[in-house]
């Protein structure tokens, strides 16, 4: 039964997810992925939730984090929780370390001359995967960044004037170090706009860190006991969520109002794009579904505004932190939206 409050998450192993028939099934799929990731990554529940929202909302995430904080583990666990019986040639998970000498073809793929057939054929790059972890995205040259961003936005790569479609599930987790910025190529706002979320990770808390240390060295049961989900189920769930979670026109108004306030804010040099609002809708739907609802409420917007909008703003010099600006901008429209439920 969906939409009972408080609704316990469905039992993962027992729920058959052969086909995604309703939101409860979709939620079961998400919870299954979540359980697998949580098995490997401790103390990062908030980040895991946002990553899942992006995955099922068909977006990409940019993690701003310190080295050695579990980014790779997270991405790998996500990739490994997905099976794909249909496309055997697509790796579930790939990782690319971005360096200044990287070339676009190193990630998209390259035309190779096959001496046996006397013909060129396309050898796929790491973007042909379900989950792609891009480490230190700001360390490579803008042309490589641009090639990746085309792949992210259009789910295709063009090599030698031939376009190759990527998998529908294609999901990028990019990282960058917030402090070590010497010799980097910072992403401009236009490119940051391609990411659904920028997630600023904090160090894990003391208890989780102790748990990590305690589990080191001791034989630990692998995630094999936890069921995986198939690529098709994720895509079906995406589709179902998009169709079944209702988004009221008032929610649209609220988003547009927030964008309007951000654009007219004196602290902001460049406001958020319309694309960001379009991307926000599926994310809000996933978040509502995760909360056991089939409609979006102000709580969803409140929860997601900061990761949705903060990286898309160009601030004037000396202005406040963008988080604060976004929070200030959201306060009024959110209050109006809440009021509207009783004031008609």
């Amino acid at each position, binding site marked *: 039964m969906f939409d009972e409050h408080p609704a316990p998450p469905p039992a993962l192993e027992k729920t058959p997810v052969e086909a995604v028939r309703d939101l409860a099934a979709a939620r079961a799929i998400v919870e299954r992925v979540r359980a697998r990731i949580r098995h490997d990554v401790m103390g990062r529940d908030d980040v895991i939730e946002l990553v899942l929202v992006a995955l099922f909302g068909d977006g990409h995430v940019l993690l701003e984090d310190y080295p050695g904080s579990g980014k790779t583990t997270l991405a790998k666990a996500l990739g490994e929780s997905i099976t794909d019986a249909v496309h055997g040639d697509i790796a579930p998970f790939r990782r690319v370390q971005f360096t200044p000498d990287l070339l676009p073809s190193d990630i998209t793929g390259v035309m190779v001359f096959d001496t046996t057939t006397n013909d060129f054929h396309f050898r796929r790059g790491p973007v042909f995967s379900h989950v792609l972890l891009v480490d230190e995205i700001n360390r490579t040259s803008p042309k490589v960044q641009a090639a990746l961003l085309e792949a992210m936005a259009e789910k295709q790569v063009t090599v030698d004037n031939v376009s190759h479609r990527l998998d529908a599930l294609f999901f990028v987790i990019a990282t960058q170090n917030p402090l070590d910025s010497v010799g980097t190529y910072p992403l401009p706002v236009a490119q940051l706009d391609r990411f659904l979320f920028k997630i600023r990770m904090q160090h894990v808390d003391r208890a989780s860190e102790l748990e990590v240390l305690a589990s080191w060295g001791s034989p630990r049961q692998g995630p094999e006991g936890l069921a995986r989900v198939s690529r098709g189920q994720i895509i079906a769930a995406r589709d179902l969520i998009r169709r079944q979670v209702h988004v*009221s026109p008032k929610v649209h108004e609220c988003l547009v109002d927030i964008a309007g306030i951000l654009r007219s804010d004196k602290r902001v040099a460049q406001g958020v794009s319309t694309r960001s609002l379009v991307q926000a809708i599926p994310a809000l739907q996933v978040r509502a579904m995760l909360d056991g609802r089939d*409609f979006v*409420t102000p709580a969803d917007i*409140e929860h997601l505004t900061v990761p949705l909008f903060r990286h898309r703003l160009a601030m004037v010099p000396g202005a406040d932190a963008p988080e604060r600006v976004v929070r200030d901008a959201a*306060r009024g429209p*959110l209050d109006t939206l809440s009021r509207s439920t009783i004031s008609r």
Partner: protein
Amino acid sequence: MTAARDIDRPTDEPWGLSLVRALVLASAALLGAWPLAGGAALVTAAASAALAVLLARLVMARRLRAVVGAGLGLTLAVLALPLARWIAESTGVWGFLSSRLTLVVSDAALFGGLIGGAVFAVRCLAIRNRAWSVLEAAGVIGAVAHLFARHRELMINRPRWLSDWALTQGLDPQVLLQALGVIAAAAAVMLALRRERPLKLALTLILLLLVGAGVYWLLEDQRIAVDTSPTAGLTGEDKDGDGKPDDPNSGGGGGAGDSLGDGSGGGNPPPPRPVALALFHAEHEPQGGLYYFRQQVLSRFDGTRLSIDESGQFDQDVIRQFPVDGPLDAAPSHDPSFFKRVPTTMFLLVDHPQPLALTASIEVRPHHNPAPRRFVAAYDAVSLALSAPTSRLVGRGSIPDDWSPQKAEHYLAHPDDPRYAALADELARDVDPRFAGDPLMVAYAIKRYLEKEGFYTRKERHLGDDPTGSFLFGSMRGYCVHFAHSAANLFRSQGIAARVAVGYAVDAWTRGAGSAVLILGDRAHAWPEIHIAGVGWVPFDIYPEQSDEPPPRFVDQSLESLLGELARDDPTGGRGDPDGKWAIPWARIGWSLVGLVGVLILGGFSVKLGRLAAAAARPEAHRLQFAATLDRFSDLGLGRRRDETRERHAERLAEWAPSLAPLTRVHLRMALGRPRDDDAQAVYDLSRAVRREYRARMPGWKRALGSLNPFGWWFTR
């Protein structure tokens, strides 16, 4: 409850500190009320301050909102004054208690309510936010400073009750005052403490004691030798003359009065103190160069002298009452064709028993007093000033035909002494034969005689049974009262109706320009008036040719014009709207505000009840149901905050209403999602469940308080 009690709760201060705080504030209340209140009120003030501190602690520990506590305290403080007044004025309480007890109870209610309410309000705020403690500290220091307010402007010996005591003890008052200041400041600082460890608290108290002991030790060292005998002038009596000076003229606006024999007017001249101000509405030059402002007339001969007629049958042309409610008219006794109407406005600077006006006033009307602190009375007067030439007055009798014999006798009574008639007859014989027997001419002859032979001096006193005779048939040295009485008696002996008028005579040349005439106390005067048939009473003053009086001084013209400006502070020139432009209608504003607040409260309750009724009438309207449910929490200040989503609000209220969360979810689905068929019913059922939980879990007094809040719905968002 326990979950919300975090470790840093401000009400967790040690009880010891609360008690010290209560003690300090009670002492401050005692000191602050000391100069104002009696014994019972002082005790009440101190007790209510201490009680308020402890009560505030108790209620704030029970999670009363600070604003509500402050509101309650302030309401009590504001209501204290009307309550005390009601007790003092209510006949029921008077009848129940004795009058003395009623006043004690009223005083106690005033100070207890005022101080207790204020302390409670500030304490409630200070428990939530320490910054408000500054107000408490200010109150304590202010109470002490107020007590020693007389110590200002280098008056280092004030207040005397302290410095005298200190000096008799051999202490230097200055050091004592400094010590008191240090202790007051330290006590005030203590009020800002909170949740200090007992050790720190004890150390603070020990430090306070050490300061006191140190000061005492210092004082011991500085003892000075003084003569403590009662004759040393340290009795606390005020000897440096800052008390009210014994003004010989204060309240003595009666002018020369009717004292003839004791010669009170013959002493030193009183300092020329302003007693009244006259504003002329039109230019008026008196015939004889003197303005006569008459207050009283003396017409009844009592065997020795003339005095005020108390019978009410005579002197009806003199207005004896101040106008209060409306105009007062004198009985008509003048022929207007001989007189000029002179309208004036009088402003009295000192009290007078009867209205003072330019002679002869025929009408007085109340006038707005523009400066009540300066003028004791203000009124309009219309006077008749003689304008006809003397020639028109000749050839008339004195007693008109329509006077009753009794009235004629009243105005002709004079001492039973043949010397008056003899002297007057002798003088009358000198009258030009053409006018022989004419009262006016005879009167002129008497006037000339007195002016020529009399000597004006204030140094001569005539005592005895017949002071007038002593003057007239003796040295003929005296002052205005003697001349006036002598003339009146001589006139009367010749069959001329006469009386003595008392008031002020102001030389026209001593006044400045402008319409104001300032009347000084030393212009007090008495003069005779004679009656001429067909004309009326006419002033008939005697001007002695010989005098040892210095000429009258000029009036201080800047004072005259200043008072004139003050009196004229009236845009309509004293003729129209009694409310001047600066008169703020406080009463009207106050009642309007009360009315406005009343209307607002009534309106608030109407909306509140309307929302409840609408929800009851339409169970299917989910918005109404939800809003009516939230109204209950808004009444208690538990409404949704601006930056709070509905879900988080419901979470915050879960302690009192667990069903609010599911209700909120269904409500949001109806408003923002795809409503289901049974959702409206669910909203109705869940609303009822929430109300049940509210009734079951919210304390009764809070619910009662909430039902009294007329504006809670305003905060339902």
